[in-house]
């Protein structure tokens, strides 16, 4: 089946898988967004417990998706793994720290003899929610704005200093956060995560005061989201991009590259526009219709479509998805950074499991979320975060 595909088709297939995992990850960042709203939506201890437990039943999905996203990137495009993680050391370490402190926070927060106190773990959740989303968004933005690194595969033959990829900035990737364009995506992801979490709370929590505050908060977060998202998108469409000449593999700057990609890939353009409309529809309908609680599905699905299309813009249509502004020819493309044909074929068979995984996730999700979370449930439930 997959054996009959060309090497390029396999590389494109795996970029689609990475894009799908990345876009599902952004949707699942609603957990992180919600963690930054515990004190603004929950004014009493019971209300905060309801919110924490609503998120706590889903945090592992986000965590697992992040880990799988990393693993899939490693398996399919190992040169990215080697170059980005080994170079932008501090950015990735900071992101990992944010997720380490999150993983224990839910389980430890309300347990007796928790030596650091409930508040400490709530601070951990806030740091993960705020810094984790902004840094992830900023890191992904470098797919369009570039980073300072060089790659030379011949280095492996050198007795002294055989490292093939090196970061050419002394700040270990932290310099990306000083780029306004990168930051605009980081902040857009942050506000989007908050919006998604509000829609999730509206969908899964049954508590009048929380819902009233949630609607107000939705309005407050939509405006900065739109501002930062539009800033990122408009800037993206007018900036020069990193084009690849397919026969030679030579990378060069191309004005309006991402706008060209959008025009030359109408399916991606449709996906992007439809996704954006769905995101706005979910928010608008929730704001304007009393008692409406299904906004999360429209905005969530829209988010997946928009992020997926952004990944497509970065990697397809002869574009370098991880460009180097230090040495253009070191830029990574889906062709020069991928695994071997054999590995991609083998992994493609494994990818057939994804629909089954999605199916049992949906089944289990529905089983647990059949009834909305209430204050009474928090008192009767034996396992409470």
């Amino acid at each position, binding site marked *: 089946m997959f054996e009959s595909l060309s090497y390029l088709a396999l590389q494109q297939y795996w970029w689609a898988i990475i894009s799908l995992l990345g876009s599902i990850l952004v949707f699942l960042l609603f957990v992180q967004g919600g963690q930054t709203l515990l004190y603004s939506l929950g004014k009493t201890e019971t209300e905060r417990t309801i919110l924490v437990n609503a998120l706590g039943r889903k945090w592992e999905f986000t965590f697992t998706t992040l880990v799988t996203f990393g693993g899939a990137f490693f398996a399919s495009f190992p040169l990215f793994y080697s170059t980005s993680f080994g170079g932008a050391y501090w950015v990735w370490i900071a992101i990992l720290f944010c997720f*380490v402190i999150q993983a224990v926070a839910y389980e430890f927060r309300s347990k007796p003899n928790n030596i650091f106190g409930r508040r400490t773990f709530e601070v951990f959740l806030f740091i993960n929610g705020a810094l984790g989303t902004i840094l992830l968004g900023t890191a992904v933005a470098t797919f369009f704005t570039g980073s300072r690194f060089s790659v030379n595969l011949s280095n492996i033959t050198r007795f002294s200093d055989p490292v093939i990829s090196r970061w050419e900035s002394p700040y270990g990737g932290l310099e990306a956060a000083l780029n306004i364009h990168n930051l605009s995506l980081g902040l857009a992801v942050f506000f989007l995560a908050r919006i998604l979490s509000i829609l999730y709370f509206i969908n899964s929590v049954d508590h009048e005061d929380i819902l009233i505050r949630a609607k107000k908060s939705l309005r407050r977060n939509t405006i900065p989201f739109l501002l930062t998202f539009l800033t990122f998108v408009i800037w993206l469409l007018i900036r020069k991009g990193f084009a690849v000449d397919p026969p030679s593999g030579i990378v060069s700057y191309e004005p309006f590259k991402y706008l060209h990609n959008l025009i030359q890939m109408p399916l991606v353009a449709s996906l992007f526009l439809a996704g954006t409309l769905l995101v706005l529809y979910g928010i608008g309908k929730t704001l304007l219709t009393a008692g409406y609680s299904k906004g999360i599905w429209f905005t969530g699905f829209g988010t997946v479509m928009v992020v997926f299309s952004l990944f497509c813009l970065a990697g397809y249509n002869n574009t370098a998805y991880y460009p180097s502004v230090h040495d253009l020819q070191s830029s990574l493309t889906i062709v020069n950074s991928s695994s071997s044909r054999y590995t991609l074929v083998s992994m493609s068979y494994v990818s057939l499991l994804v629909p089954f995984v999605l199916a049992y996730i949906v089944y289990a999700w529905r089983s647990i979320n059949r009834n909305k979370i209430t204050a009474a449930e928090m008192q009767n439930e034996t396992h409470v975060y």
Partner: protein
Amino acid sequence: MFENIDPSLVNWSRGQFALTAMYHWIFVPLTLGLSFIIALMETIYVRTGKEEWKKITKFWMTLFGINFAIGVATGIILEFEFGTNWSNYSWFVGDIFGAPLAIEGIMAFFLESTFIAVMFFGWNKVSKKFHLTSTWLVAFGASLSALWILVANAWMQDPVGMHFNPDTARNEMLDFWQVLFSPVAIHKFIHTITSGYVLASLFVVGICSWYILKKRELFLAKRSILVASVFGLISSLMLIYSGDGSARQLVHVQPMKFAAIEGLYNGQTGAGLVAIGIISSAPGDTNSRNVKDFSFLIEIPNFLSYMAYGEFDAFVPGVNDLVDGNLKYNLIPVSDKMERGKLARETLADLKSARDRGDTAQYALLNARFRDPDFINNFFRYFGYGFLDDPNQVIPNVPLAFYSFHIMVGLGFYFLLLLVLFLIGLYRNKLENRKFLLRLAIFTIPLAYLASQAGWIVAEMGRQPWVIQDLLPTMAAVSHIDATSVQVTFWLFAVLFSALLTAELSIMFKQIKIGSK
């Protein structure tokens, strides 16, 4: 040696990986074993309908949850550290090593994370059977996750099913099934997961012993001991069997590690197995070889030869034979391997150079060498030796490997005996009177963790300096980052993980004191 790679960077990077891996491994074995023990208990509850068993299941599930969370927290670092700290490694073997990591995520992590939510929150939301299925799926998910990461680790110890592609300057997978079903991987998987099962059984038995001594939770304690002891005993037997299999393979795939764990410096025919030994310095010791003499030794004659080759008079190579070579037994000196590795590296450099200057004839000629079995078996297989500048670099820390191995093995047999004694005590209904045994079980919990950590020290420290056996040493695998950054993150992880472990222990002890109420 490496002018541009700071040796302290390599050491700090190794230190950071060891620190994070050892912290992670504090929590993983309990997750592996306790998940099955809980699933067994819940099965009894569903089959008998007795509420007491539900109460027992929920009690252990609470402890499981506390341990699981911190296991997850410490685990995410490891996956990404292959990139952050070992970037050259990530490219050189990422084509093979990345696949198990991705499969682990898709197959196992989602299974665990999806059904763990049902396991904790589904008691009143889903049917009994669906809940029980979820609990079993969490247990299988945990062991499935272990399978893939252990396959990846086994491949580092015994790289099979691949070839070197000179164009991409990396190793590429040729046979997925050979990677998955390599004998080293199979033994490693069985040995590692059963070690987790035994640790979890001892954890349950130890805590229940405390309850019995305190005359509390007697029903829970006796029933839990029964389940854990039977599960632990079966696992112990599999643990010992797979450990024996691992050792037999070791002498073939990692003979230096085998020599190190036995403290065998000079090869012998009819070599004896050191049952107990104390290593100390002697005037004639060569410090550069990590070689120390035994000041005290109890040996089982000829048994090492038998363990390694199934023959009592077989020759087992020692550290010195492996470094200096031994003509009689066809052992090549490391200095020779270094020359061969250097030639393989220079051939690759010439190939790159021919390609860059457009010399297609020379390029084709050199490229063909990397497909020539003679070149692969006699030169490229020693590629990693080309990065060494002293033959003694291939010797791991012998005392550390020796003691770790003997602690692990000794404790392994002790655990088996302890579990048998508990089952006898239960059978005769005299457990409450056996205070010494109960106290011993409590003190055995930390010993189980010690044995578990010692096992990984044998596996990882015993194979130094190799990241990929014979192909890539640590100093050629590291990322191009400054040592100070790694020092800072080392201490950050050390402080953070220590703080979290302290919190975890505090919460765990409290939950045990609270009991099943």
